[in-house]
């Protein structure tokens, strides 16, 4: 019992300041990516933030951790455009409303935020598993109507101001905004390799093991996943973009 309450306490503490946490049961999952070493991905039970981390959440973090303030964070961990839409290092201002998802954050900053909450960034497999659900089904990926809806978001111009988090209905697991709001970092974004490989040189058979094999798509119709992967694989960990945020997992 004591152990149980120890486990629950940090979770409750975080739930108060964000949209809360959602438990996902996990299981065997067929990724839209084709891994050469496995057919099904085993996702163990985990918790994911219901909504993406917001500006006000991130503001609280940089207030407690001055090393992560804009202008203070080492350039090696966050490029020059880090939090550039904020009015100041500890001021949100008109371009960063409190409940909008925080964007312009590097992988290093997102990783540090989650660690500071006693959490971590989700893996790509966890993210993809959670994002396969629509409002009623845990795996809606085969439904062309749902696919079209997601693609509709990707086709939208990205200049419009970001909506605030949590406006969309929760998916079957209770998680919101996995599609239709921002791109999201994963902890293993640096494991996603598309079209970057070492196989163009030397002995192909040798390079296959230790050389970086590019992932290929097992499900070519799943453009939404393909775009996510292509985007994450094109980023360095210090990069930021105006449409890229994150949420944490435990």
């Amino acid at each position, binding site marked *: 019992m004591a152990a149980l309450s120890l486990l629950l306490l940090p979770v409750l503490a975080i739930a108060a300041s964000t949209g809360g946490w959602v438990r996902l049961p996990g299981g065997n999952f067929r990724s839209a990516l084709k891994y*050469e*070493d*496995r057919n099904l991905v085993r996702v163990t039970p985990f918790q994911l933030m219901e909504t993406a981390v917001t500006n006000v959440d991130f503001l609280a973090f940089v207030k407690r951790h001055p090393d992560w303030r804009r202008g203070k964070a*080492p*350039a*090696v*961990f966050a490029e020059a455009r880090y939090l550039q839409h904020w009015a100041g290092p500890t001021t949100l201002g008109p371009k960063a409303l409190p409940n909008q998802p925080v964007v312009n954050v590097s*992988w*290093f900053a997102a*990783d540090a935020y989650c660690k500071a909450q006693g959490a971590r960034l989700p893996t790509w497999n966890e993210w993809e598993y959670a994002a396969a659900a629509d409002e009623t089904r845990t795996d809606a990926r085969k439904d062309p109507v749902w696919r079209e809806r997601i693609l509709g978001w990707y086709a939208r111009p990205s200049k419009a101001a970001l909506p605030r988090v949590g406006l969309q209905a929760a998916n079957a697991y209770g998680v919101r905004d996995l599609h239709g709001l921002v791109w999201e970092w994963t*902890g*293993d974004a*640096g*494991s*996603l*390799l598309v079209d*970057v*490989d*070492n196989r163009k*040189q*030397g002995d192909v058979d*040798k*390079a296959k*093991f*230790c*050389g*970086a*094999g590019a992932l290929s798509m097992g499900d070519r119709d799943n453009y939404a996943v393909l775009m996510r992967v292509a985007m994450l*694989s094109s980023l*360095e*960990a*210090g990069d930021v973009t105006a449409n890229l945020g994150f949420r944490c997992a435990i």
Partner: protein
Amino acid sequence: MGRLITHFALALALLLSPLAGTAQTPPLPSDSIYQLDARMTDQGGRTTTLAARRGRVQLVSMFYTSCRYICPLIIDSGLAIEKQLTPAEKTRLGVTLVSMDPKRDGADALMRVASRRKLDLTRWTLLAPKPGDVRTIAGMLGIRYRELADGEFNHTSALVLLDAQGRILARTEKMSGTPDPEFVSAVRKALAAR
């Protein structure tokens, strides 16, 4: 007499080093990978940091000891670059290989590779970071990797050239016994800079 002078010089260095370590060391540049504050273990089982390499131009890469194909090539590439340098240049260059598989690469495994490859441990260092820091180090070096079900890793291979302050000057992804001439000249230039 020679020994006495050595002792004297050593004592002097010891006396002066606290000063050099505090008041006289300028702050790290913001874009230095030595900004990472993470403890790791070297091939001798000693606790160290990446920043302990500060002051010497470095070639840095990532590898893992059970890797059969590309990783030996990474070491070959480092050795091949050294071969292009004069003895004086060589002494000023450090080579640091960081394991992406610290669960299996303890000091013993690192030392076995160092011995088998006859690496000069006055200049080469093999490091095992904590598992939670591997992704961060790879991120700083721009190296991508993924652990496979069988314990092997898919990874990009790169040699990254750092100046004495840990800033990235150049990188090469050409892993072979004949080094990329452009990269070698970048190494030479870095070693010439004082």
